[in-house]
């Protein structure tokens, strides 16, 4: 329910997600994979009672953001003991250490193909699944991928360009060993390999022959029961790059609202007619990230008073795996002030992890929430739906779904 473009009027009973899956297929172009949230009722990985709490999700989100900040801060952080303890001193091409993403897709690997549920992540490059034989694998949703059962599997030799690009510096019995250490200390090690990747429902026209991926045999951390992870970053080894010759450069996705729909991940760059574009920015020190220029914010239709330089100087990364958008301190303060000023009628609630502007909607039938829009270089505007404005942990704790990066002079 809406009340003009500047406000969201929402029934309080609809604030929390449905407890059951109501699959609504997303519309997309060809070679699209269905996307569901890892912890939503539509997820095949959902473990009843085993999902993390809201506070845990947000704490993990901060681990990922800390990792992105360390990477983009450049070599000056290399002497920081905290940085070293998280493994970010590893060469960048050893894997982009950014933790797991929150959305999953199903992919087919090998010949005959076997289906695997993997998280997808625009903040990292190398794709991997757990493989047999495995020294130390966590419990996953499907049986392990068995290279010996695939007629198209081959190990990547140490001298291959794909191995040299990884800079893993490890070679065993002529096989290339890879390692990715993520920002939350999750880790995968294994052999770099090639096999046929099938995208979509099993048609040979949607196959990538010789897809390079990691065959993990020593994996620990916060991967849940996912069978692996697929990277969509900008490096040559990512799924997006390897699929470019077949589908064209670029890709698109729609992340579903958490419970009642499925989204999609589609390779190739076809865009919906209503899409608004902004420039994709590249930084040589972190070439795997997709940067763009956020230049302003509107609350209830009015531009928040922040100089565009506050956004432009540090820059902005778009990431499918970070949950909460992080803003420069001055921008967040201005957003919070505007938002809170328009929410004065509601009782405040305690902070939730990194979210400090929370409200208690107990006893109310409807709430009226100011809209938030993000403005990008070139005029593209992201008019956020209600779900992008408030993070609703419970009726008594609904929080502005933005956070500060902390001291933006640091």
């Amino acid at each position, binding site marked *: 329910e809406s009340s003009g473009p500047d406000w969201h009027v929402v029934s309080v009973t609809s604030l929390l997600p449905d407890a059951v899956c109501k699959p609504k297929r997303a519309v997309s172009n060809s070679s699209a994979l269905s996307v569901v949230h890892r912890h939503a009722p539509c997820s095949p990985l959902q473990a009843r009672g085993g999902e993390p709490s809201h506070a845990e999700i947000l704490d993990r989100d901060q681990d990922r953001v800390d990792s992105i900040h360390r990477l983009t801060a450049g070599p000056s952080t290399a002497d920081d003991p905290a940085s070293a303890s998280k493994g970010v001193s590893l060469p960048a091409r050893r894997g982009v250490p950014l933790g797991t993403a929150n959305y999953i897709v199903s992919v087919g690997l090998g010949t005959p193909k076997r289906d695997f549920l993997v998280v997808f992540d625009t903040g990292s490059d190398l794709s991997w699944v757990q493989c047999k034989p495995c020294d130390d694998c966590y419990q996953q949703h499907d049986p392990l991928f068995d290279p010996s059962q695939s007629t198209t599997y081959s190990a990547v030799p140490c001298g291959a360009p794909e191995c040299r690009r990884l800079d893993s510096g490890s070679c065993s019995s002529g096989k290339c060993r890879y390692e990715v250490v993520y920002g939350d200390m999750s880790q995968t090690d294994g052999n770099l390999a090639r096999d046929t990747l099938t995208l979509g429902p099993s048609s040979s026209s949607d196959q990538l022959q010789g897809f390079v991926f990691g065959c993990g045999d020593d994996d620990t951390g916060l991967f849940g029961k996912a069978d692996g992870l697929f990277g969509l970053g900008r490096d040559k080894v990512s799924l997006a790059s390897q699929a470019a010759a077949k589908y064209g450069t670029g890709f698109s996705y729609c992340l*579903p609202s958490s419970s009642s729909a499925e989204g999609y991940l589609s390779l190739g760059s076809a865009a919906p007619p209503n899409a608004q574009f902004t420039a994709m920015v590249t930084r040589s020190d972190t070439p795997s990230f*997709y940067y763009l220029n956020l230049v302003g914010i509107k609350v209830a239709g009015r531009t928040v008073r922040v100089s565009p330089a506050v956004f432009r100087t540090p820059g902005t990364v*778009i990431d499918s795996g970070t949950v*909460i958008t992080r803003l420069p301190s001055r921008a967040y303060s201005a957003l919070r002030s505007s938002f809170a000023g328009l929410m004065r009628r509601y009782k405040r609630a305690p902070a939730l992890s990194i979210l400090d502007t929370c409200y208690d909607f107990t006893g109310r039938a409807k709430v009226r929430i100011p809209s938030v829009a993000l403005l990008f270089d070139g005029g593209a505007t992201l008019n956020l739906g209600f779900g992008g404005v408030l993070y609703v942990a419970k009726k008594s704790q609904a929080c502005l779904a933005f956070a500060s990066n902390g001291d933006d002079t640091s």
Partner: protein
Amino acid sequence: IGILGNMQQKTFAVVYDVANQKIGFGAKGCS
């Protein structure tokens, strides 16, 4: 740096047009 997280990307079609070096957002992208 700022980070545009997935809470704010939900339900939009997010387009990574690498050939033309641009990123697009289409409202109601899942429906």
